[in-house]
């Protein structure tokens, strides 16, 4: 029983990082109605920028955090130009295929620049383990959970209360109406892309700081986890992204404990499969079934 709850705690922590990855995907998908397959590799660029700063100057956590987020945003700006800005809005498959190509390109670039199998990433070692009765909470897990909670609250405020947020949401409703209402659609799309990248960068930093070492496999890993969490939670729903991430995190933590690493992978994909068959609209299905049908048609 104690194991079950402890796994749950660990799962919720890592799940909140998955949730952040899924939020990044969802923001881009909601606004562009297109999938960005290079999302994980943009984060990879950010993480290696942080690791490079760490290895070169033994910089502190704050500059490394800034470098990670900045690296992810710069790489994403490149992806946006190559795979989204120059490809027409209705050519969703072309964008997806081209972002796949950029994924390979970015990953290869990072692998060339950093040829070792793995690199060290700084951790929050100085912080003590938190004890909650019989349970333990790793400080980096607490950081993950808190950061995700704060970011989600801030994002919710931004999207529902501010003019910028409303403009973002007009894009997923009707681009034509947004344009004639004076919204600079291209500009809002670029800023949303940047915002998604920054959220991904934060998630990448937290994950790397928890593991203490990074490899070029992290890009693919982040893309997979983010996509799976998004699909489980429900395409196009921000709440769904978060819930999907948490569910995925908990299921993985339990499976890891009871079934081992290979059992965990089997459970992850079984969960994805079950979600697609039983809950095609995700755990947090949007009321707006028309928008959903539209979204599914475009993928």
């Amino acid at each position, binding site marked *: 029983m104690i194991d079950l709850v402890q796994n749950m705690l660990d799962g919720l922590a890592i799940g909140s990082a998955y949730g952040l990855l899924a939020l990044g995907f969802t923001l881009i998908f909601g606004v562009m109605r297109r999938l960005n397959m290079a999302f994980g590799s943009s984060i990879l660029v950010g993480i290696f920028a942080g690791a490079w700063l760490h290895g070169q100057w033994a910089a502190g956590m704050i500059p490394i955090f800034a470098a990670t987020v900045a690296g992810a945003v710069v790489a994403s700006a490149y992806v946006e130009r190559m795979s989204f800005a120059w490809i027409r809005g209705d050519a969703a498959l072309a964008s997806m295929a081209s972002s796949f190509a950029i994924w390979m390109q970015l990953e290869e670039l990072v692998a060339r620049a950093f040829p070792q199998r793995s690199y060290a990433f700084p951790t929050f070692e100085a912080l003590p383990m938190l004890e909650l009765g019989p349970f333990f909470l790793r400080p980096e897990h607490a950081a993950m959970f808190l950061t995700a909670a704060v970011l989600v609250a801030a994002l919710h405020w931004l999207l529902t209360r*501010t*003019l910028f947020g409303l403009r973002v*949401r007009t894009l997923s*409703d009707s681009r034509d109406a*947004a*344009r*004639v*209402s*004076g919204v600079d659609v291209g500009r809002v799309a670029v800023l949303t892309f940047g915002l998604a990248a920054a959220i991904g960068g934060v998630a990448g930093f937290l994950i790397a700081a928890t593991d203490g070492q990074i490899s070029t496999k992290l890009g693919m890993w982040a893309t997979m986890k983010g996509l799976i969490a998004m699909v489980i939670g429900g395409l196009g729903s921000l709440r769904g992204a978060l819930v999907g991430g948490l569910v995925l995190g908990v299921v993985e933590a339990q499976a890891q404990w009871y079934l081992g690493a290979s059992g965990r992978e089997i459970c992850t994909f079984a969960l994805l499969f079950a979600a697609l068959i039983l809950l095609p609209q995700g755990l947090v299905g949007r009321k*707006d079934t028309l928008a959903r049908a539209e979204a599914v048609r475009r993928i």
Partner: protein
Amino acid sequence: MLALDSLSKHFGGVRAVDGISLTLKEGEIFGLIGPNGSGKSTTINLITGLYTPTTGTVRLDGRDLTAMAQHERTAMGVARTFQNIRLFGNLTVAENLWVAQNGHEQRRAHFLGRWFRAGGEHSPEIGELLKFSRLHSKRDVQASALSFGEMRRLEMARALASRPRVLLLDEPAAGASREDGQILAERIRETRDRGVTVLLIEHMMELVMGISDRVAVLNFGRKIAEGSPAEVQANADVRAAYLGSKHKDEELIHA
């Protein structure tokens, strides 16, 4: 004030709009009619910038809009509604208006102010627009939950929220009853009285002929007549064009 000069739009071999010239006068209601496929909607799309013209120019108060993006034309004072309503369904009624109201202030205000301002959907101007459109009881309702008639009213209010000089209405009476048509006519007149010039595309002849100061008739992408409603209804070319699509003829004569 709004001037189209030899405007053309060709889709492959199809000349959807073929050399149309029109000039709207400040403060008038101008009706644009024609059989289906005569190029009315294409003309609106050329004015708002959804399409780029093959040849010709669009000017507003002497300024050339032809090369401007759609949101820039909105900032210049061009607003429109769509034949098939396009609202921001996930936003509330008041938020729909707020977005449109601020569309053209993007360049003027301070960066933080213009992107992160919160709570502007409660401004007095939006309250006034909600009253004008008889939507004030629905201000916090999601736009997708409105009735069809309310959606039409909201779309027109959203167009007005951008403080247009000229408002383009693309079949605003489509799907409306005769009584609704009369209410709509009243609202279009009130809009004109607010100082907004109106370009009206409509199939409901009674509405167009009843409220337009001038009317132009399109057929196969060309303008075949222009004048007062009475002049246009008496025009032989116009009757011939409408005889091609039977039922429209009676409407025209009886209106």
